[in-house]
């Protein structure tokens, strides 16, 4: 039970660290093609942590957890496609 209580604090810290990471990439102008992939993966991780621990879907039947997870995965994957797919003129 005490561990369960601490999980929320750990999740918050991880979310803040990943947000600082994203901000520093942008602020220090380090954003390049390979780091965009890292940024999108960290965005997925942040979203999944919110879905599982803040929305509380980790303890709910899989189908209800899968809906936002699939949404997040599809949206981020298509953003990656839009970013990396070469433009043919």
């Amino acid at each position, binding site marked *: 039970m005490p561990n369960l209580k601490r999980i929320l604090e750990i999740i918050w810290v991880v979310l803040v660290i990943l947000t600082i990471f994203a901000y520093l990439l942008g602020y220090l102008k380090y954003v390049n093609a390979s780091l965009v992939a890292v940024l999108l993966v960290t965005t997925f991780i942040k979203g999944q942590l919110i879905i599982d621990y*803040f929305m509380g879907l980790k303890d709910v039947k899989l189908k209800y957890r899968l809906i*936002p997870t699939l949404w997040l995965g599809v949206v981020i994957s298509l953003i990656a496609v*839009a970013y990396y797919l070469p433009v043919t003129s």
Partner: protein
Amino acid sequence: MSKSIALKEPHPPGDFAIWVIIYVEFITFALLFLGYAFSRRLDVELFNASQLAVNQTSGFINTFILITSSYFVVKAVQSIRNMTQESQKESNIQASKWLLLAILCGIAFLGIKITEFSHIFGMGIHLSTNKYFMFYIMLTVFHFLHVLLGSGILFIIYKKTKIYGYLPNDSKGIETGASYWHMVDLLWIVLFPLVYIIR
């Protein structure tokens, strides 16, 4: 010890109607996110140049604020869920404190966003300036309205906790509002890197 295999809840937290709304919001925002991403492909230079006008720092602060407010909301929900017959008053007081912090975060988010909007609109930028700003304004104003509504919902729940209105085994109302607030947070988690950082 025998409880190591936890049983899964049959339904998501809160009223199921809020989840229908959340799924509709997911679809709406997905279309806007992908509209932005695929429009950017066609004019990367314009999007990169226009993005310089938006303040990444205020976007970062707002992300931090929303994540923190979501944490406060989870703590409020926990206070109500863990309530016993004897701790009804204390649990409502505890939840009201967490909710007040979350509402203050919501107000801070809105304040920072209004400052950002007044800067952007003060530069003479509007919906038809270019495609980047069309998506920027549509996405961020639409999300702003969701934060406004979410803050209102949290305030209604807060008022109920102030009159010790939640009873043991009666957490559905607060879970419903909380689910909406976490959705607002989740949408911003995608919006922030997409519109403010990726170039």
